[in-house]
């Protein structure tokens, strides 16, 4: 199976109640790639997926699968496979009946249907469960059946709407890696919507971050994390500390609580730094504050340090600090981990 490229050209969508779901979106999805659409609720990510699926029509713009313009085609004629958030399995059919549904619609002969069904049950690791009723399945099993059902008719494109959101944390982790292997194995073009940044980073070849109906950034997971295009993206993907700059000082920039090293000529309004790039200084640090709280999180500890700003500074350090809550604490940062961002949007600490 080789993937089909998908292209959205100037797709715009406004709902009947006047809410603008999508401001003219242009998007190129490469053949065989897995694209994660990430964003907070109401950012237009589900609308984008439904436009690709054919469950919504754009007010203007075009949707192309390869060379074919599918804008006017309803979903049943687009040849897509879709995994729904709550799986939407047919309760009146058993597992095999669900998987074979798409093949039956296409008029595939019974013997071939059964063979394909067995093949898919094997693929998703539910070999002996073909005759089970949907009600007898666990959440993880339902998710796999939904995936097998979507893949059975060999669709051109696989679309997943929050495929793992309904599962508990441990199962989610396991199914995430299974899904990853499966998508790589099939080489099918896949688009999935999620509000979980970890899921987007783990599964997506590229991530589309959306904000209020527009594209905020489209890039690889690494680039999204390391070179976020805006404060919104940076804050949504991982945690971020923001330091409003007060004034220039001899060897850096003066901020609330101290001074940060900064050597380039530019004068940013706000400096940013990821929590894992701040260190607790043993001697003189760049920033001085008081430890407000300390959370042990297994692989690292998270410290909340009050430096006199509105929000406490977040610090992730590998070993538990010896400080007690209430102690004075010094933090240091390396210049290469401090960056500025083009947008002045509000940043979540």
């Amino acid at each position: 199976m080789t993937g089909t490229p998908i292209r959205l050209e100037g797709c715009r969508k406004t709902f009947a109640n006047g809410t603008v779901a999508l401001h003219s979106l242009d998007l190129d999805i490469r053949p065989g790639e897995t694209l994660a659409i990430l964003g907070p609720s109401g950012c237009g990510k589900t609308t984008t997926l439904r436009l690709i699926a054919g469950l919504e029509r754009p007010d203007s713009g075009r949707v192309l699968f390869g060379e074919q313009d599918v804008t006017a085609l309803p979903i049943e004629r687009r040849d897509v496979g879709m995994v729904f958030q709550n799986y939407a399995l047919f309760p009146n059919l058993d597992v095999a009946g669900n998987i074979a549904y798409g093949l039956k619609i296409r008029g595939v002969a019974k013997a071939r249907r059964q063979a394909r069904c067995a093949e898919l049950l094997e693929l998703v690791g539910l070999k002996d469960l073909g005759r089970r009723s949907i009600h007898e399945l666990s959440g993880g099993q339902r998710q796999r059946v939904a995936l097998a059902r979507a893949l059975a008719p060999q669709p051109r494109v696989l679309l997943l709407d929050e495929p793992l959101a309904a599962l508990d944390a441990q199962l989610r982790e396991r199914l995430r890696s299974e899904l990853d292997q499966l998508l790589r194995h099939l080489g099918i073009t896949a688009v999935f919507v999620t509000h979980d940044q970890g899921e987007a980073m783990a599964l997506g070849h590229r991530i589309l971050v959306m904000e209020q109906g527009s594209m905020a950034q489209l890039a690889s997971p690494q680039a999204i994390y390391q070179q976020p295009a805006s404060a919104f993206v940076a804050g949504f993907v991982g945690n971020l500390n923001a330091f409003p700059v007060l004034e220039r000082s001899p060897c850096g920039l003066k901020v609330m609580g101290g001074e940060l090293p900064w050597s380039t000529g530019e004068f940013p309004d706000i400096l940013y730094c990821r929590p894992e790039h701040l260190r607790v200084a043993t001697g003189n640090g760049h920033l001085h504050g008081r430890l407000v709280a300390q959370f042990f999180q297994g692989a690292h500890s998270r410290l909340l340090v009050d430096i006199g700003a509105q929000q406490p500074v977040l610090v992730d350090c590998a070993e538990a600090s010896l400080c007690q809550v209430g102690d004075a604490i010094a933090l240091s940062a390396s210049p290469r981990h401090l960056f500025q961002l083009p947008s002045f949007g509000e940043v979540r600490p």
Partner: protein
Amino acid sequence: MKRTPLFYGQLLFVLLVCAFMLVPVLMSLLAGLTRNYFQGVMASGMTLDWLNQVWTAYADTIWLSLRLAFACALCVTVIGVPAAYALVRMNNRFSRAFEELMVLPVAMPGLASALALLLTYGQLGGFRSSWLFILVGHVIFTLPFLVRPVMAVMQRQHLPILEEAAASLGAGPLRRFFSVVVPNSRAGILAGVLMVVTLSLGEFNLTWMLHTPMTKTLPVGLADSYASARLEVASAYTVIFLLLIVPLLIALQAVSNHLSRGDRR
């Protein structure tokens, strides 16, 4: 376990209520099997003659009632299931108003609906004198009893999402209706059919106005026999009615339970 006086008081009350409701039925059954009701069972003894007499005189009303009930169930299903689906899908002020409107024939005295039908279609001779005229009345009267439970089930089943799933697998609108909507509403459809059959078999008001001497249903025949024959004959008629309807309803209920097992979970 020690029973309190309250328990015995409640038990007595329940038994009294049961007796109050059941004794008339039993008396009627007994009357139908008594040789001469005015002399009493003891004096005159029991007989099956009255049953026999009813059967020879009114067998055709029984067949007509059964035919009507099943034809009515069929028509109501064919009209009611798509109607319920449309009402659930629309879900706006108009559809809610329509839903209320549909219940009107139930609230209205059957005589009034029958009169309206007679005024409108009474001149169509062939139609007026056929059993189909009564069927129309029954369909109008029983329609809400199917549409309501079907709508309730449809609203519970997340049908829009299931339909989207079916569409994503290539199913067009008609295919979705028959492969997703109908099977997942069957608990409601079966409950509705059961109700429609029951109501149609016992319907009197409308039917009495709409019937002709050649199209008498069981309840109309019953009224006829009360009015014109001995009390024992009418009671024997009741016996036959119960013999007919009780097994029928039990069978229908069993079928519906069997078919809708998967839907309740």
